[in-house]
């Protein structure tokens, strides 16, 4: 496998800006995300639309990043590309020592199963399965024989972490929006991922529940040093992250670190 070491990506930073450089000192660099000259287009000829234009940035391992922008700004597309769900792009995406555009389909699938977790606006829980069974879904595609874990016990631990152990036998139709999203988070955490990709995780929730979910993300980020990338169009949600990346018409227009009050104190 042809890999690009992290340092190579760090040597040629182009348009990413870290305004509070001291924060990076906390981070380990084993699963840094590095985008270089990322472009994505839809259609041909006159109908050609540039969804992403020359986006370059680095997200260090353990960062909690929000990607904000208006509808159609390219934020979900960028998330999908970083998560290895969308492979039709030009430029370079490096995660840890994996250069995504050079990975085979099966290698990319393994990376998604092993290192990534996904959370969606529509939760995407399977209605015919219980909360517990939904959480164990990644286990079906787990190819690592060393991960000799009891799926039920693992799912119960995760359900306990998100405060829903009492709902383990409930079907998604019996859960509220916030509960569904917590089950989805537990599923995303099943394989101990290094990075959580969240696409509008609070989009289908009321403000209070949305904030609770974001608080859960904050604790996961702090306690487990998990890299979190949250796409949102809600400013109050975005501000709960430690870094905000703004996109407009497929272009990166700002990249700011957020100073939280409790950090200042």
């Amino acid at each position: 496998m042809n890999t690009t070491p992290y340092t190579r990506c760090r040597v040629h930073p182009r348009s990413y800006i870290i305004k509070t450089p001291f924060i990076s000192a906390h981070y380990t660099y084993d699963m840094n995300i590095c985008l270089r000259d990322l472009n994505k287009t839809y259609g041909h000829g006159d109908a050609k639309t540039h969804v992403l234009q020359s986006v370059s940035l680095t997200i260090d391992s353990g960062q909690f990043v929000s990607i904000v922008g208006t509808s159609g700004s390219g934020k979900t597309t960028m998330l999908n590309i970083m998560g290895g769900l969308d492979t039709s792009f030009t430029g370079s995406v490096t995660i840890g020592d994996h250069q995504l555009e050079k990975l085979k389909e099966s290698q990319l699938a393994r990376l998604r199963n092993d290192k990534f977790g996904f959370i969606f606006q529509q939760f995407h829980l399977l209605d015919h399965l219980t909360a517990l069974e939904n959480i164990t879904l990644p286990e079906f595609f787990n190819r690592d024989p060393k991960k000799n874990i009891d799926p039920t016990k693992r799912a119960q631990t995760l359900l306990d972490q998100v405060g829903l152990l009492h709902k383990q036998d409930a079907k998604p139709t019996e859960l509220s929006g916030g509960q569904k999203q917590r089950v989805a988070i537990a599923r995303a955490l099943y394989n101990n991922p290094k990075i959580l990709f969240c696409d509008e995780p609070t989009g289908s929730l009321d403000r209070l529940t949305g904030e609770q979910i974001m608080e859960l993300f904050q604790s996961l980020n702090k306690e487990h040093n998990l890299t979190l990338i949250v796409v949102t169009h809600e400013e109050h949600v975005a501000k709960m992250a430690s870094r905000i990346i703004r996109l407009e018409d497929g272009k990166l227009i700002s990249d700011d670190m957020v100073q939280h009050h409790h950090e200042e104190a």
Partner: protein
Amino acid sequence: MTPAKLSKLVWQSVNRNRRDFLFSSIGIVIGISTLLFFTSLGAGIKETVLEKVFVVRQIEIEQKKYSGLFGAKVLDDDLVEKLKQVEGVTSVYPKMRLTFPAGAVGGKQLIGNDLRVELVADGIPDTLISKDDIRGNLEFKDWDNIACSSDSDCETGFACGEEKICKGITCDSSADLVTQRQTCGNLGFCDNSNTCAIPIPVVISPQLLEIYNGSIHTALQGSAGSMSKLPKLSESMLIGLGGDAIFGQSYFLGKAASKEKIEKKRMQLVGFSSKAINLGVTMPIGYVKRLNAKFGNKETSKNYHAIVIEASSNDQIAGIAKRVEDMGYALSSKFENAQRASLLILLITLVFNLISVIILAVAAVNIMHTFLMIILERRHEIGLMRALGATRREIMLLILSEASLLGLFGGITGALLGFGTTKAIDAVFASQVQDFPFKPDTLFAFDLWMFLMAIGAALVFCWIGALIPAIRASRTDPARALTGH
């Protein structure tokens, strides 16, 4: 993905879509039951026709009827030896007819009066008759030609003679039956020349009995006189019955050309065999050879009238038949009829099986449609699985495994339905259809390969139906599927 994980995932999916799966399996169930029905019907008819009416594994050769200027090639011992060398031939059985006039008297035990008839008989090697065709303790063997070295090699009532052949000892024909049995043994009797003898064992064709019961008996019921009282006959009624054969003289043809004295010998029916002559009796060939040598034409009495060749398999038959024709001999019309019957049954079975395959093809299209619908409905689910780490191959495997489960269910249910239908038809056939010659106990013949083929066909058609949907599912773009595009 391990087989255990795959099985669990497949079961979850099938369980959720069970109504869709049930509906799409209907076509497969019908197609498989039809396929099994027609295959077993074809095999059943083939078995009845080709193993009872015509025998295909064996061919019979005869002299050519139109033989040209130099006369027909004869069927003799030299030819028997030549035929044994032909590739694919396992056994060669010569058949010899009586070549002089003969008559028979008998039937008193059955109808109260003796009937006098012309005796048509042929001889075949005793090895050609299966032991299953011979009833009870009776035997089909040449009793007048038992080789011996001492008296102990011979049956009771016989002693080893000078030619090292068992000969009947002297007895008293005027003594009662028990005394005669004590002297001549259970198989033997004391003949008019006061010598122990064993009746000539004969077999008759089961067709003869079928023809009698199916046609002659029915016609005789309307006749005047004692013939109208003739009963319907069964194999058990006839076995062991005997009569006297009169060699050298018949009622219509008169005396044999030979100056030999007429010979009267007792015959006993020991069994029924498809190898027996159609109209007449068949005895071990040794008797016929000796009688022909005694009463027949000296030039032709050593020739056979037919030779049966048994092949190691049905596939060899065509090659052997061609070889025999090249050697200048004719195949018996019985074989040609069997070939035609076999071809006809094969064609009919093929046509019916083609109908079954069309039904299965329609079912496969239906399965494809169902799977395409299911996959469309499950687009988000498949996208999610891809996001959670499923490869394209695993998604394809999942869909094809679901199709396999559907095929297995459809195949087993279809096979059971087909089997049940045949049993129902057999029951109706047995109770509602009148007896006729060769009426079989069952119209169908089953073999393990038919069930395996039925289930295999169900699986193949399900895979064909699910292949395109599986490919489409494996190509699901997770990003688009999950964002609802």
